[in-house]
């Protein structure tokens, strides 16, 4: 069964996509690395950003973390606060 997952976009990722969130299909058992791959396929410009991180439910996530459609997922491009 295919579900969907929504991904929040900030900063340069929002500017490059023109959207503050994108919705992507989520296959059963998909991991963070799979999600990044399908985002890069849909928005090749994002693949050019060095050291992109992913947050799941407000915490930095490792590439092998499994996702569920109820997760709050965000792309975290290099931060520059302060």
């Amino acid at each position, binding site marked *: 069964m295919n579900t969907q997952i929504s991904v929040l976009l900030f*900063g*340069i990722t*929002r*500017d490059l996509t023109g959207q503050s969130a994108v919705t992507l299909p989520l296959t059963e058992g998909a991991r963070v690395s799979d999600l990044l791959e399908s985002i890069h396929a849909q928005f090749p*410009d994002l693949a050019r*950003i060095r050291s992109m991180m992913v947050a799941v439910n407000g915490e930095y996530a490792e590439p092998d973390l499994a996702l569920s459609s109820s997760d709050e997922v*965000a792309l975290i491009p290099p*931060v520059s*606060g302060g």
Partner: protein
Amino acid sequence: MVSITSDPIDVSSALTLLQSDQAGAIDFFLGMVRDNTQQRSVDHLEYEAYDRMAISEMRKIVEQAREQWTILKCVVVHRKGTLRVGEIAVLIGVSTPHRADSFDACRYIIDTIKQTVPIWKKEVFTDGETWVNAHP
């Protein structure tokens, strides 16, 4: 106390929050918007935050500081939105019994904020704009 605000940051209110009869030292760090970066003239900055996660990451940093130094009170306020030259982008305040701890803790907090907290700064120049650290 950790917060993100769209309003100007007020140092006097922060000082009130840091007061403690046991405090022998208070260190404040203010990150200011300056008028140039790498010789380019800055018109203004745009700060954007993933608020929920930024608050939780800043709280973690304060906890890490409390594990390393004797801290009485700690205030971290980060601004977001449009900031003009001369405005305060971030305030870190730490009160401690002894002065070395106030400097060390304050410096640790600002250094770590710049590495891990999901807040992004866009420099808007008179002739273009850049997301700092991230522009491909």
